[in-house]
């Protein structure tokens, strides 16, 4: 028998609705329409019986599949025990510990971010002895491996005492390298000279080692090129080849300055092969 959907229209057959009709899942209006249609349509009455028989057959077939593969079933008691063990430690609706503390963690992170931004921005806005002294105290404490003593530097701002673990001079220098004029090699070198005067070399080295690879590479490359230090150039080039070049030289790039780290790497190679002139360094023309 051809089976047309017939789910709409007063004269249409109602085959598509028969399964739902059997299971009592039709709305009242639809059910009434099907009943009315069945009363006058032998074909659909026949189809209703077939729908029931096939539904039962489908259900039996699925049941047969389950019975045949019963050996694959796990130990249900053990499965239940495992689930209950994982849920009984907390109330329903409760999240694991991390999620319970997530709002507090997020707030703390935001607060730390704000403090960090303020702390990074202000040293440049406060020229003078206080700022410089705070950098010196922090750097000295980093070298000595002990926290700064507030009593020894009464004019140090509170934020400098609270954050001794991150020596600000190298960070400030790196930030300047990343901002406008980042590729202005001569300017960066002059600033380096001022900062080197104020900060012990060991503190600079430790902070430099903690920088992200791209920033560390840029810093080391410029230092190597500035000093024409072939050993340092080789180290920077190794960092470039091992870590940055495989990533496609995409980190830290900005519109209009594609390939700046790659240009630095080229300059390092030039330095290792031939003496490099200061005016050939990347960014010197800008």
């Amino acid at each position, binding site marked *: 028998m051809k*089976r047309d*959907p017939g*789910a709409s229209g007063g004269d249409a057959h109602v*085959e*598509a*609705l028969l*399964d*739902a009709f*059997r*299971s*009592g*899942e039709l709305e009242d209006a639809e059910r009434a329409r099907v009943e009315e249609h069945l009363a006058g349509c032998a074909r659909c009455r026949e189809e209703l019986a*077939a*729908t*029931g*028989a*096939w*539904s*039962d*057959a*489908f*259900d*039996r*077939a*699925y049941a*047969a*599949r*389950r*019975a*045949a*593969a*019963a*050996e*694959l*079933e*796990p130990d*249900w008691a053990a*499965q*239940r025990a*495992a*689930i*209950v063990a*994982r*849920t*009984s430690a907390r*109330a*329903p*609706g*409760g*999240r*694991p510990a991390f999620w319970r503390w997530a709002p507090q963690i997020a707030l703390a992170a935001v607060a730390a971010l704000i403090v960090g931004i303020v702390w990074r921005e202000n040293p440049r806005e406060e020229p003078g002895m206080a700022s410089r002294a705070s950098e010196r105290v922090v750097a000295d404490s980093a070298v000595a491996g002990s926290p700064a003593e507030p009593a020894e530097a009464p004019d140090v701002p509170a934020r400098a005492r609270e954050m001794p673990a991150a020596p600000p001079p190298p960070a400030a220098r790196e930030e300047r390298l990343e901002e406008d004029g980042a590729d202005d090699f001569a300017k960066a070198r002059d600033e380096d000279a001022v900062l080197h005067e104020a900060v012990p070399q060991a503190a600079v080295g430790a902070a430099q080692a903690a920088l992200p690879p791209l920033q560390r590479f840029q810093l080391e490359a410029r230092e190597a090129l500035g000093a024409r230090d072939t050993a340092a150039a080789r180290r920077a080039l190794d960092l470039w080849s091992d870590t940055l070049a495989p990533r496609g030289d995409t980190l830290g790039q900005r519109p209009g300055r594609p390939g700046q780290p790659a240009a630095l790497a080229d300059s390092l190679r030039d330095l290792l092969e031939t003496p490099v002139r200061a005016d050939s360094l990347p960014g010197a023309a800008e």
Partner: protein
Amino acid sequence: MKRDPAGIDEERAEAEEEAALIARIAAGESHGFGLLVDRYQRRVWWMCLRMLGDPDEADEVVQEAFVRAWERLTEFDPAQRFYPWVFTIARNRCLNAIRRRRTWGFVSLSGDDPPALAAREAAGARVEDRELGGALEQCLETLSDEQREVFDLRHGEGFKYAEIAAALEISHGTVMSRLHRAREKMRECLEGKGMTP
């Protein structure tokens, strides 16, 4: 699947009992959750086995799904049945597992491939069940993914139309038309293999 009026009444009573149980669990009777696990873990596991084809992976997903259901129990709408809800959670996890497989390749936790599972099913069945189950398996292959999904839920899981619509996030009318076409194709296929209801 209960289709007679007495069965419908029985289902309604079960739904009310279940809603009361979940309300008690949410109010603090946490041991009641074990009853829900007892009641539905087997069905969830079979659904996962059908999707994943790996019994051990199905075990994992079932545990994850019930733990997730517990974590979200306060969001549960007591007007709905629990099984379609936990089913949806488990199904999403199965789909994630399948996506991971597509990304990383299939690694069976039990050491069986899906075809091996089908062979074990067939080997353990009685002759008439094997015929019926085998024919079902072959004819299911003639359905589109969308038709097979609604057909599995209706006849493999015993879902109501509204539950299928909610689980798959499609309209009631779409469920009805997809299921009608799937049933037509299955009947034609099974009749073609000499099967009668």
